């Protein structure tokens, strides 16, 4: 993970360097004199060669300093952390919403394979996957805030502000997870242990949930884990549509303003976040599947 982060930071640092825009112009007011600019440039080390600046930056990170924003002058790490909970709240509720819809729907369609209910749900899921989610967000605003006036069209506050963004990010995710759950359940249903469980007289509910779903969980959890990068992307768009102050918007805004320390820092922190989430997914595997747990405990 460390080499990956190093290369990522180098690439982003290099890209932002090429993206141009003199950082001095962003820090000083427009009427600053040439001398003032030169002094600042020397102070901040902008005249140093690229690699020197890069290693100074990495050195800063290692000593816990991710730099300060050129625009606002605020600490990068602090700004990122200050917005992280908003994105996690949005992404988390989208994920919960998606799971609540998709897992029961996926099981239901798998159990009623090739009936009209299955076809209907599959077609709906296909529509869900095919929709750009920022457009879905706009349509939800059009219907629920402008036509019906039930929910606010943007901003933050109580739970009513969370509903539309979470549904926007969650719905296409739900469509995807429905498809995964359905195919995972279809694989499991045909297994012999399901017949055995039925033959032993276990109740329908028990057969489906304890014997079926438990075994179908691995592909579902994998899909959820893989989709987290998608959730981050979706959040960046939904955050723009709904004016939600999260990380996605922070990064996109900073890139547009050529705020190099903010961009580089945020993207590195995003990568760390992804790594933590992947680790969390691995741990969830162990909970879902006793075979994986046994592997780990056997090794230690």
């Amino acid at each position, binding site marked *: 993970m460390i080499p*990956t982060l190093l290369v990522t930071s180098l690439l982003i640092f290099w890209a932002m360097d090429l993206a141009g825009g003199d950082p001095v112009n962003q820090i000083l007011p427009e009427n600053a004199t040439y001398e003032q600019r030169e002094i600042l440039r020397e102070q901040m080390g902008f005249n140093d060669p690229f690699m020197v600046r890069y290693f100074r930056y990495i050195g800063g990170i290692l000593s816990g300093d991710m730099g300060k924003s050129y625009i606002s002058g605020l600490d990068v790490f602090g700004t990122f952390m200050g917005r992280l909970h908003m994105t996690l709240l949005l992404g988390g509720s989208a994920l919960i919403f998606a799971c609540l819809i998709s897992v029961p729907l996926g099981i239901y369609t798998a159990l009623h394979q090739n009936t009209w209910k299955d076809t209907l749900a599959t077609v709906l899921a296909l529509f869900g996957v095919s*929709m*750009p989610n920022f457009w879905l967000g*706009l*349509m939800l605003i059009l219907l629920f805030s402008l036509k019906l006036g039930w929910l606010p069209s943007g901003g933050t506050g109580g739970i009513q502000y969370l509903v539309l963004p979470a549904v926007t990010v969650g719905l296409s995710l739900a469509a995807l997870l429905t498809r995964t759950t359905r195919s995972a359940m279809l694989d499991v249903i045909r297994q012999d242990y399901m017949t055995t469980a039925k033959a032993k007289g276990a109740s329908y509910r028990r057969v489906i949930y304890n014997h079926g779903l438990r075994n179908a969980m691995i592909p579902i959890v994998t899909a959820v884990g893989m989709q987290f990068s998608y959730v981050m992307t979706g959040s960046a*768009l939904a955050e723009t549509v709904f004016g939600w102050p999260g990380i996605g918007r922070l990064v996109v805004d900073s890139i547009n303003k050529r705020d190099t320390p903010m961009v580089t820092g945020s993207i590195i922190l995003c990568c760390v976040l992804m790594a933590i989430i992947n680790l969390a997914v691995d741990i969830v595997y162990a909970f879902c599947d006793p075979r994986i747990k046994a592997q780990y405990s056997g090794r230690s």
Partner: protein
Amino acid sequence: MSKTRKTIILEGEEIEIYKGRSMAQETWRRLKRNKGAMIGIIFLVALMLATTVASFVYDYDKDIIAMSKDRFMPPSKDHILGTDNMGRDIFARVLYGAKYSLVISLGSTAIGLAVGLFLGALAGYYGGLIDNIVMRVTDIFYSIPYIMIAVVVVSMLGTSTMNLLLAMALGTFSNFARIGRASVMTVRDQEFIEAGRAIGLPTWKTIVKHVLPNCLSPIIVQTTLKVGSNIISASSLSFLGVGVTPPTPEWGAMLSDGRSYIRSSGWMCLFPGLAIMFTVLALNLLGDGLRDAMDPKLKR
């Protein structure tokens, strides 16, 4: 296995021979039975025809980007999808704009496919150090949400259609590298590859002529699905203001325009979004159909 019968005359005697279908024939035969896939193909062909016709019928300067006084007209007989904030006919713009969405998504997928497949095949065929390097690079692109990569690249190179294409290809290639690698690894150790090596075939020829054709089906399926998701990505980037710039009638850019007028003129957002959704839906239907048709396990 189903076969076609053919009668030939050999040494004055009439004999029947059975000729097996090629992979392409077999796939097409099964694809024809899939209603969804056929709807998808018909829609895509119709869309391509319509956008070609539109580029002849409409004059870019006069009909597509020029302002007129009929601003914010709701859908009516004269303008079946209404007009936008500059009085331009939305129907004309949506049809004309299909060209941009299709070209950008096809182009970026093609570049991503070529680069990804090349790297993936190298990694899978040689293994060892090359494999390690290629896979770490794809890991990096996997761990950053694609939208952030694309925004950084576009801001580095400047906003233009070509740069958008490159940025999206960068977000696409890691996917194909993984598929290419996995597919190559499954056939790498088989006898016919070894036979090729034994008769002294150059490595590149072995890969191109013998390895890749045996991994075609997952690649074709993934390409179809990726073209669809790249249409969504392109429009998302245009929506964020880093893709195709107005007044070009790209669907995402049209949505971005319409967003400011969503309160009064909802149709400005509705129709470009529907266009994106149906196009991506058609590609997904085709992709799912191809997956079923090419799956040897599902032979009917």
